[in-house]
C-alpha cells in the first residue's frame, strides 16, 4: 500500500471483521470553531485503533462526543449494531465506554481508591459504600498496574506520573467494551510505559476495543493495528499499521513530510549564568552541582521522581534548599520566591500546565501577558493595544492555533495550551530559561518547531535548562546531558557522543559514578 486509502471501499479491506463501534459523520462546532466536520471512525473488538492528528485536530473532541461529555450536532454512534446516544458520561459508561482523559480528571482530596471508582463506588443496601470491596478491588487493580502507592493514599499527595496511573486504573474497574486512552503516556516515563502497554494488550486480548491517542509514533507503531488520521477537524484516512510507515502517517497528518529539525545546536558558550553547588533539599535531592552557561542548552534526564522538577523548583524559589548554594552570573543568591526569581531573570515553564502554568478561565491574550503585566501597563492601567501586540507576536512565533485572542485557554487543545505557557515565559525575557517537559503532549510538527525555537533562544544568548523524560529530546536539543537517579546526579555527558546505553544505565542507577567526569570542568 503506497498511497493512503481515502475512499470508503478501499478502507474497509477487512470488511469481514465487524466493528463493535462506529461513529458516523460526526460534526461538532464550538463558538468560532468547527472542531469536527463529518468525521467517521470505527473500532473493532480486540484491536488498538490509533487516532492521530496535530494539536487541535479534534481527537479529544471526537472521543468526548463518544463518551457523552459533548453531544455531536450531526452524526450517529452505532454500538454493536445499535444506534445509541449518550446525554452524559454516566450513560456512556453504562454502555461500556470508558474515556481516560488527556487532562487529569481527579479529585485531590479523595483517596486513590475513591478516585479509581469515582462514579462507580461499590454500594451495599441501602446506599452504603462497600469499603472492603472497594479496597480489595483497588488493590487488585494497583498490583496489576504494578503501582507502588496504596489504595488509601490521598491523590493530592501523588506525583503527576502516579496520578496518571490512577487515571489509567479507571479503565480496569469493570470490563468495558471500548476504552479510549487520550495521551496516557504524556506524563509517564519509559519506566512505567511497559506496564501500561501490557495492560492495553491484555485488554485487547480480552476482546476490548481500544482507541489510543498519542503524539509518539513509536508507541503508535508498537501498539496499534490501524491508524486513523484527523486533520483540522476532518477525517483524513485510515491505514493498517503493518502496511505503513512513520513518514506516510506524518504526511497524512500535517500534509507534508516532517521537516527534520535541521537547525544546529548552539556552539558558543560564554560565562556561567547559573551555577549550582552542592544543593540539597532534605529527602528530595542531594549534593547537586552543575552549571549552565550563556548560549548553552543543558538537558536533565532521568525517571519521574528522580528529583529533576524539584531542582527546578528550588532554583525558581518554590522550595528552600537545606544546603548548598545557587549562583547567578557568579553571584551567590537566595531566591526567595517565584516573584524574586522572575526579577532575577529566571523563567520556569512547569511540567503541569493545567495546575501550574495557566489560568484556564482567562483568555489566550491575558494568559500570555500574565507574567509581564508591568511592561504592558503604565501607572497600573493596562494597555490593550500593547497586550495584543505581544500576544500576536508569540501566537505567530509559536504557531498557536486558536480562533482568536479572546478564546478561553481552557478550551484550547492540550498542545496549544502548552504553547501558551511557553509564550508566557518568553515575554519576561529571562536570562535563564528552565523548561520542564516542554513538549509533553505536543504533536510532532510543533515539537520540531519548539526544539528549533529552544536552540534559537540559546543562540541568541539565553541559558537553557531542559528537563525531559524523552531521550530523543534531550539528545536532540542539548549540548550536555545531566543524568539523575534517585535525587542525585549520576553522570554528565556530551550529548553528541553519549550512547543510549550509557544514558539508560545512568538514570537507573547502574552507572559507575567514577566515569562521570564533569564535562564543564574539562572545558567541553
Amino acid at each position: 500500500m503506497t498511497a493512503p486509502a481515502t475512499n470508503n471501499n478501499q478502507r474497509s479491506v477487512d470488511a469481514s471483521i465487524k466493528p463493535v463501534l462506529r461513529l458516523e459523520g460526526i460534526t461538532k462546532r464550538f463558538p468560532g470553531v468547527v472542531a469536527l466536520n463529518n468525521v467517521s471512525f470505527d473500532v473493532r473488538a480486540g484491536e488498538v485503533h490509533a487516532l492521530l492528528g496535530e494539536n487541535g485536530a479534534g481527537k479529544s473532541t471526537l472521543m468526548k462526543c463518544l463518551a457523552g461529555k459533548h453531544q455531536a450536532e450531526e452524526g450517529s454512534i452505532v454500538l454493536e449494531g445499535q444506534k445509541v446516544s449518550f446525554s452524559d458520561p454516566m450513560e456512556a459508561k453504562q454502555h461500556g465506554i470508558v474515556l481516560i482523559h488527556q487532562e487529569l480528571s481527579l479529585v485531590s482530596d479523595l483517596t486513590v481508591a475513591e478516585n479509581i471508582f469515582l462514579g462507580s463506588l461499590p454500594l451495599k443496601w441501602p446506599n452504603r459504600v462497600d469499603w472492603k470491596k472497594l479496597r480489595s478491588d483497588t488493590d487488585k487493580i494497583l498490583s496489576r498496574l504494578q503501582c507502588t502507592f496504596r489504595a488509601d493514599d490521598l491523590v493530592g499527595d501523588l506525583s503527576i506520573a502516579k496520578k496518571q496511573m490512577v487515571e489509567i486504573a479507571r479503565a480496569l474497574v469493570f470490563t468495558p467494551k471500548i476504552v479510549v486512552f487520550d495521551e496516557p503516556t504524556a506524563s509517564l516515563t519509559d519506566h512505567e510505559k511497559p506496564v501500561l502497554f501490557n495492560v492495553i494488550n491484555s485488554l485487547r486480548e480480552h476482546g476490548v476495543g481500544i482507541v489510543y491517542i498519542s503524539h509518539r509514533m513509536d508507541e503508535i507503531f508498537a501498539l496499534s493495528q490501524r491508524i486513523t488520521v484527523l486533520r483540522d477537524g476532518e477525517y483524513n484516512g485510515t491505514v493498517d499499521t503493518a502496511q505503513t510507515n512513520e513518514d506516510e502517517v506524518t504526511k497524512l497528518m500535517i500534509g507534508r513530510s516532517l521537516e527534520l529539525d535541521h537547525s544546529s545546536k548552539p556552539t558558543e558558550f560564554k560565562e556561567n549564568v547559573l551555577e549550582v553547588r552542592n544543593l540539597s533539599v532534605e529527602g528530595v535531592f542531594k549534593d547537586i552541582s552543575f552549571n549552565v552557561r550563556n548560549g548553552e542548552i543543558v538537558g536533565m534526564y532521568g525517571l519521574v521522581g528522580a528529583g529533576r522538577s524539584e531542582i527546578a523548583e528550588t532554583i525558581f524559589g518554590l522550595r528552600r534548599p537545606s544546603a548548598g548554594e545557587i549562583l547567578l552570573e557568579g553571584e551567590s543568591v537566595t531566591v526567595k520566591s517565584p516573584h524574586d526569581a522572575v526579577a532575577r531573570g529566571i523563567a520556569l515553564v512547569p511540567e503541569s500546565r493545567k495546575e501550574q502554568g495557566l489560568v484556564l478561565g482567562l483568555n489566550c491574550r491575558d494568559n500570555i501577558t500574565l507574567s509581564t503585566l508591568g511592561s504592558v501597563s503604565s501607572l497600573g492601567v493596562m494597555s490593550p493595544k500593547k497586550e495584543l501586540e505581544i500576544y500576536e507576536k508569540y501566537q505567530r512565533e509559536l504557531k498557536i492555533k486558536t480562533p482568536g485572542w479572546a478564546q478561553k485557554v481552557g478550551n484550547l487543545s492540550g498542545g496549544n495550551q502548552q504553547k501558551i505557557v511557553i509564550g508566557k515565559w518568553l515575554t519576561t525575557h529571562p536570562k535563564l530559561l528552565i523548561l520542564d517537559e516542554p513538549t509533553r503532549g505536543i504533536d510532532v510538527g510543533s515539537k520540531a518547531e519548539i526544539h528549533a525555537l529552544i536552540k534559537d533562544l540559546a543562540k541568541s544568548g539565553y541559558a537553557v535548562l531542559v528537563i525531559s523524560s524523552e531521550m530523543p529530546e534531550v539528545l536532540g536539543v542539548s549540548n550536555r546531558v545531566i543524568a539523575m537517579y534517585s535525587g542525585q546526579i549520576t553522570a554528565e555527558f556530551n550529548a553528541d557522543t553519549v550512547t543510549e546505553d550509557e544514558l539508560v544505565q545512568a538514570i537507573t542507577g547502574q552507572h559507575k559514578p567514577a566515569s562521570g567526569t564533569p564535562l564543564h570542568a574539562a572545558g567541553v
Partner: protein
Amino acid sequence: MVNVKNISKVFGGIQPIWLFVIAITVFFSFMSEYFLTTGNFMNILVQTSTIGLIALGMTYVMINGNIDLSVGAILALSAALAVDLQSYGLPVALFAAISAGILLGALNGLIVWKTGVNSFIVTLGAMIGIRGLVFIYTKEQSFYASDFAFSDFGISTIASIPTLGVIFLVCCLIMHLVLTKTGHGRNTFAVGGNREAAADAGIRVGRHMLINFMIVGFFAALAGITLATQMGAATPNLGRDYELWTITAVVLGGTKLAGGFGSITGTLGGVLAIGILRNGMNLMQVPAFYVLVILGAILIAVLIIDQKVNRKSGQEVNV
C-alpha cells in the same frame, strides 16, 4: 520520612478544633466555678443545638462546593408555620413546617443545578425573598404556641438529658454516618473537590447538589421548630444572622469553603466551640459586644493556624 508521616497522622487524628474546644473548656473551668457543672453543659448543648442542626446540613452543602445563605429565613418561616398552624393539630403544623423547609431547599437546589448560577447569589436572593414571605405571612406579629405539648417539649428531658440535645446528637451521628459511609456522602466530596472530574466520571452532580440543599432545608426547618418550642413562640425576626453563625461554625470545624473537604465531627467541634465561648464569656460577664469582637478574632486566628498546619502536611514530598 516515616516519622514525619506518623506525626502528621497523629495531628490528622485529632482535629485542631477539638484541641481548641478542650483548651477553652480548661480555661473557663479556671475562670468560673459555674462553668464545669452538668447543668451548665446541658445548657450549652441546648443553646448550640439550633445552630448545630443547621450546621449539619450546611456541612454537606459546603463540602459539595455550594453555600446556603437562606437558612435563617427558612428557620423563621418554619417556626411561624409550626406555631401558627397548631390550630389544625400539632402533626399538621409540624408537617407543614418541615415540608416548607425541604421544598425551599429543593427550590434553591434546582435553580443552582439547572441555571448554573452560583449558590451564593441564588441563596442570597432566597434569603431576602423568604424573609419577606415571613413578614407577609406573620403580618409582622409574633405567634404564640397554643398547644402546651409543644412548649413542654422544649424543656423536656430524656434520662435527664434535654430532649433537644438528644435530638441534636442523634442527628449528628446519623449525618456523620451518611457522610462517611454512603455513596451519596462520598459523591458529595467528589463533586465539591472537582466538579468537572466528578461529572466526567459519571456522577450525577446536579442530583447530589439538589439532595444536599433539601437536607439543609430540612435541618433549617427542624431548627426552627426546636427553637420555637424553647420560646413557645415564633417571631418574624427569628434566625437573623444564623446563616453567618452556621457558616462560621462549619468553617471553624475545618470544612473547606471551596468544597471537597470537611466532616461532621469537625462541625460538631465548631458549633461547641462557639457555644462554649459565648457561655463562658457570659459567665465571666464579658459585655456582649466584646464577645462578638473576640469571636470574630478567634475565627480568623483558628483559620490561620489551620492553614499553617495544612500547608505543612501538604509540603511533604514523596521521592
